[in-house]
């Protein structure tokens, strides 16, 4: 009896401890890529606007899309890449953006905005970040290397390489190696790309879109196909100086990630406040400095203190992903074959 009382008391204590946090009345539900906004930016927003932000993370567009489609709604803001913006528009999942509520929208680089083909004129999206996946190499373990996708052909690095578990990124890299478009639907080109990936697959440990940063930090992996920020956030300063990130010269998939408001969002006003806050040059500067990514906010470029790991000009050979509609199924099939190893 006594022991049971202790048990229950412990439970109550625990729940009491957590339950006593005061929660502001306004809430904002955000579903974002992992480590895409520094925690202090979110908490500064919460303090400034008296809002409680609920923040969940995903590792790929597909994961996000599947979760939303499976009833994981309830989010206000999501950060899809361009190809998924057009899918989500087509599926009627997005709320049109009222730019009059975004006084900071004008800071966005018009040259970048003009490249947007997935939602011309940004009727449904607010561009957040532009960049590309690349390769981070551990210079201590890999002395000399070419800044090219061909690093995945090196059998001397077998078991120390990872590719993203993301079919568009990986097939895109292979397609660019061959000089084709990352949005190709040509069967022959895709077959050639598959052959290249199968070649790479022999040398890699796994397809990984989640733990490559940790693995790299642990010295497990020596060259990883990655988003730079995910890796470098795992490293301490000495490790970071021994790591080199590059976008392979052949180019690959570039991405444009965007903030969108989901249809039926309950906290639209707060969502606009948040998006406008993010577009604020000084806030945006903190974000790009933290991520060391290029800025698409013109006013920020002068304010930022850290040089980015690469510039928008480095994306010259890269292409923005586009929605492929029903042809995506072919990519899925090829990807399935690659994953299982046939």
């Amino acid at each position, binding site marked *: 009896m006594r022991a049971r009382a202790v048990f229950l008391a412990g439970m109550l204590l625990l729940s009491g401890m957590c339950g006593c946090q005061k929660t502001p009345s306004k809430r904002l539900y955000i579903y974002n890529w992992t480590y895409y906004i520094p925690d202090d930016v979110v908490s500064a927003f919460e303090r400034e606007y008296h809002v409680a932000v609920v923040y969940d993370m995903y590792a790929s567009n*597909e994961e996000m899309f*599947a979760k939303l489609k499976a009833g994981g709604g309830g989010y206000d803001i999501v950060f899809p890449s361009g190809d998924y913006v057009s899918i989500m528009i087509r599926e009627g999942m997005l709320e049109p953006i009222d730019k009059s509520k975004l006084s900071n929208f004008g800071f966005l680089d018009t040259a970048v905005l003009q490249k947007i083909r997935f939602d011309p004129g940004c009727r449904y999206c607010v561009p957040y970040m532009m960049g590309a996946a690349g390769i981070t190499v551990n210079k201590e373990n890999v002395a000399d290397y070419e800044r090219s996708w061909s690093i995945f052909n090196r059998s001397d690095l077998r078991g120390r390489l990872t590719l993203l578990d993301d079919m568009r990124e990986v097939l895109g890299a292979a397609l660019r190696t061959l000089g084709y478009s990352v949005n190709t639907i040509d069967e022959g080109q895709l077959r050639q790309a598959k052959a290249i990936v199968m070649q790479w697959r022999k040398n890699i440990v796994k397809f990984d879109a989640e733990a490559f940063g940790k*693995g790299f930090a642990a*010295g*497990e992996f020596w060259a990883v196909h990655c988003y730079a920020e995910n890796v470098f956030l795992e490293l301490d300063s000495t490790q970071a100086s021994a790591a080199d990130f590059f976008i392979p010269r052949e180019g690959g998939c570039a991405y444009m990630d965007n903030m969108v408001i989901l249809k039926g969002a309950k906290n639209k006003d707060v969502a606009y406040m948040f998006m406008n806050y993010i577009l604020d040059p000084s806030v945006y500067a903190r974000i790009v400095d933290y991520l060391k990514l290029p800025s698409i906010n013109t006013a920020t470029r002068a304010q930022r203190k850290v040089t980015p790991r690469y510039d928008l000009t480095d994306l010259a050979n890269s292409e923005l992903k586009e929605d492929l*509609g*029903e042809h995506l*199924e072919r990519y899925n099939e090829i990807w399935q074959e690659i994953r*299982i190893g046939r």
Partner: protein
Amino acid sequence: MRRNAGPLYVAPLALWLCCFFIVPLGIIALYSFMSKGVYGGVVHRFSFGGYTALFNPLFLTVTLTTFLIAASSSVITVLLALPAAYFIARSARKNLWLFLVIIPFWTNFLIRIYAWIAILGNNGFLNSLLLATGITSHHLQFLYNKYAVLLVTVYTYLPFAILPLYSTIEKFDFSLLEAARDLGATVSQSIFRVLIPSIRGGITTAILFTFIPAFGSYAIPQILGGSDSLMLGNIIARELTVTRNWPLASSIAMVLTVVTTFGVVLFIRLNRFQTVTTAPEAFTAGGVDGDEQ
């Protein structure tokens, strides 16, 4: 006469299971015969696509891998669990040992997986140990392959094998072993011909408790596996949450369900057959014949 309160008692249970177990399973069964939408999900058009895709050699490969990993891990688990359970059952301090076995498993399952990353990782405990003792000169890779998956699967399900084995061994009448020895059996004969057959039920349970979860494993191969250890669970999750091919995910799930259920039924049948054939003739007629009492 009292009215039968049975339906009243089981109504909440029946309702709950129906809503959240039977119907969802039914939906999966239904979806497995439909087709995929362009952006995933399901469109209500009949198709065998989910099943024909399964006969793709790709899936056969994965199914085979899954089966091999699950089967070998359950065999290893039971082989380890048998002597351990025997030791506990024969010890004077059973409760202490049981406690010792159970406690680590009250910590979170994922944290235990994580702990293995800390051991097997590149800069992990094992590598440091090997380097420090000079056994190897460079970091060895232990993670991200099927052996890592196997090891942690065994680690995770070992207690689930020890506990049922312990409870059957504990009920075993050990004087039978002495009787067998008395009748001329060697130690190993008495163990394999008397002890093992008597604790068959426990062994069955132990195998089921390890094989089934291992067969449907998701988290362990996801975290510790490499490209050689993709399992059915990962494929389902992938088809469901990435490719959004619901009919395919459903048909794999159906196959998993049918195979598991069939396996369990078969196992239980075999076991029951054994107990029936060894059951004593319990039935004796009442003494109505007026003979000596």
